[in-house]
């Protein structure tokens, strides 16, 4: 394995983390959007707020990580992707602004209609942002991004059946992951009906994501043959692992079990992402730019690896600390769940 391959692997780790954490975050926004305005919908939204509140920012840092590694280590690929896919990436950036500020503001907005506007922006762009990101991935996978500054078609590169299907898959996967996570969060909050509420939704989303994935195989076979061959070739074991994990989650949810759904759901997503990575190897842009051809100077590549190592040492313990605090409800004081009528905390110095 060359240094460039190692850096590509590091980038892929970032992409995986973004798919899991960012995807779940987007999914949570989607569930908040379609929860409705009834009492149950309010409580579902309350649970979403409570669950992603402490970590929503950290969840999206992985995107910046992927972008930075891409432009530092594989600048030509970055240039080609960002210029040809100007439209969906601009829309994704717009979505990031609107959903991020929507979430940041909705709890602070005093007036009811501002609060609802902020909530809707957060929800709507939690749906659209991963969709556009999916179209970008579809465009890359199907070889519609040639090397160069805006060398590909600005519209048909991402507005095609395969890209739209990939976008839909991204949305469904996020919704699925998020519902599985929210089941656990509901249990943590001690709300049994919310646990059932999200278990049903997790089941629906799992079936939906699975159906899109199966349909996707046929579309990829027709339109992104290189990736399809990889997924059914070297990547096949990982695809099978992903399918088994997905079926396991379905089975558990169907039988009303809760334990083990989270690792299995994450496993399903991680396995398919790495299956994809194996399928696309050694290309950054399938059939037009390989990892070694697109790689930066060796000194830069090594520096990226060093920075990644430092990040592991510095960031991972801090992040683990934050997630642990959030999960243990230390951060929420005595673990006050949403929706329960509790007074505001009294200061204890």
């Amino acid at each position, binding site marked *: 394995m060359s240094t460039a391959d190692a850096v590509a692997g590091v980038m892929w780790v970032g992409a995986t983390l973004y798919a899991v954490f960012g995807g779940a975050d987007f999914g949570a926004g989607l569930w908040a959007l379609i929860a409705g305005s009834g009492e149950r919908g309010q409580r579902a939204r309350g649970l979403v707020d409570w669950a992603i509140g402490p970590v*929503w920012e950290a969840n999206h840092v992985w995107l910046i990580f992927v972008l930075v590694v891409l432009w530092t280590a594989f600048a030509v690929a970055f*240039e080609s992707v960002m210029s040809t896919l100007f439209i969906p990436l601009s829309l994704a950036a717009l979505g990031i602004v609107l959903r991020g500020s929507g979430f940041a503001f909705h709890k602070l907005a005093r007036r009811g209609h501002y609060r609802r506007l902020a909530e809707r922006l957060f929800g709507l762009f939690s749906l659209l942002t991963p969709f556009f990101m999916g179209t970008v991935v579809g465009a890359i996978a199907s070889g519609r991004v040639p090397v160069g500054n805006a060398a590909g078609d600005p519209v048909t590169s991402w507005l095609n059946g395969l890209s739209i299907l990939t976008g839909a898959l991204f949305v469904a996967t996020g919704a699925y992951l998020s519902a599985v996570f929210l089941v656990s969060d509901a249990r943590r909050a001690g709300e049994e009906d919310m646990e059932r509420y999200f278990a049903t939704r997790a089941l629906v989303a799992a079936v939906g994501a699975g159906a899109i994935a199966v349909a996707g195989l046929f579309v990829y076979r027709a339109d992104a043959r290189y990736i399809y061959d990889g997924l059914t070739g070297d990547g096949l074991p990982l695809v099978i692992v992903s399918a088994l994990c997905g079926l396991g989650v379905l089975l558990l949810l169907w039988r009303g079990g809760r334990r083990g759904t989270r690792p299995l759901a994450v496993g399903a997503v991680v396995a398919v992402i790495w299956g994809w990575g194996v399928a696309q190897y050694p290309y950054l842009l399938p059939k037009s730019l390989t990892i070694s051809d697109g790689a930066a100077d060796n000194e830069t590549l090594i520096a990226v690896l060093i920075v990644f190592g430092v990040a592991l040492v510095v960031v991972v313990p801090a992040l683990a600390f934050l997630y642990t605090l959030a999960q243990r409800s230390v951060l929420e004081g005595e673990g006050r769940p949403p929706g329960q009528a509790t007074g505001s905390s009294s200061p204890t110095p």
Partner: protein
Amino acid sequence: MISLVGHLPNLFAVSSELAPARSQMAFTLGFHIILACLGVAFPALMLIANYRGLRRNDADALRLAERWSKVAAVTFAVGAVTGTVLSFEFGLLWPEFTGRFGEVFGILFAIEGIFFFTEAIFLAIYIYGWKRMSGWAHFWTGVPVVISGIGGAYSVVAVNSWMNQPGGFTLGPDGSVTSVDLWKVIFNDAVPYEVPHMILAAYIVTGFLVASVYAVGMLRGRRDRHHRLGLLIPFTVAAIAAPIQFAVGDTAARAIAEDQPVKFAAMECVQTTHRNVTEYIFGICTDDGVKGGIGIPGFDSFLVGFDTDTKVTGLDSVPPDERPPFNTLLHWCFDIMVGIGTALIALGAWLAFVWWRRRDIPSTPWFLRAVAVSGVAAVVALECGWIVTEVGRQPWVVYGVMRTEDAVTGASGVWVTFAATLALYTALGVATVLILRTMSGRWRSADEAEVEVPYGPSEPAPPITGESS
């Protein structure tokens, strides 16, 4: 001729994106830079208040620290969003720049990523730690926020320094990068003056901005200890930073006269290279020299070399297409920045003098009025300084190596994204200010816990989404 005509639409299509791309970049950076300053310096103010609160058992200081941490959370969240947009723009607007030089400067953003991540994580821990951790343990969770704020500022500003003083790479015959020396990138020639200048600016802007809020409150009659402390802590930090900034800025100007003489010539409207150059304050820059304005004979030469006989390079040292645009604008921005900086130093000295005499803030309302406008003034100075740096570097994106017009995207439609960005950021700015006002209103009228910040609900969401008050 035929081929030229055939090329023309293509050429036009490419160059027509330059104006909107530059406008969008300038606008989004000009917006983000304010939030970035708050992100760098606000946590320090918050910790100073926290320290004082713990050390002297000062409940007012602790309450300020808690509120400031919540304000910092809001501005940090908005800053994170606008910062993400900037990282998209490196590709959306300037793909050729990043495609060619990403392997040179990109590592600084990777380093910045670590700092940013650390800052985000510890800010979240700090905000949630209020009332849930013991006082000093909680205080220490805030320290990494301050350190990573400074580290992040170094990394980002070092990229801009590198764009002004590029080095640490070699180019092949086709113009592509053939080797990279990262130490010379990370510690490039402009770092020693540009990075401290920006970090001090962050502390000055944040200090005066926060102080101005409490000055307005005091002018409205809220002259309690809470407001006095809320004014004094940030004001003191800014007032200490301002004179240091004067020295750093003066060094920076002299370094620019050496490193980027054309930028310096544009800042000072020096048309021809000569000695005994007059320093003009304001005035209109023309090819024949400065019209109007206040001239101080020989002073520009003196500032550059401490001798009126110092030779100053003029704009005529390079062909017209290598000179920065908007000469008068640049000149005015430079003068406004220096002018405001000087006035802010005087404001700090005023308080210092009165404090020395009678341990109190000046009793005249004119002092509070001056503090009330100092925040906006500091922001204006910040923006002016940024314009001087960025517009003064033009027409280069990488000084002397790559022209901005060669860096721009080949995609069309930047006018559309610029218009959308303009509308969106205006709404974002208005919403941010309204939200901060709402928070302050709630703090005045209700209990602390009612204000929930974007790092999540420590309290249950209100059961009904209707009017909450």
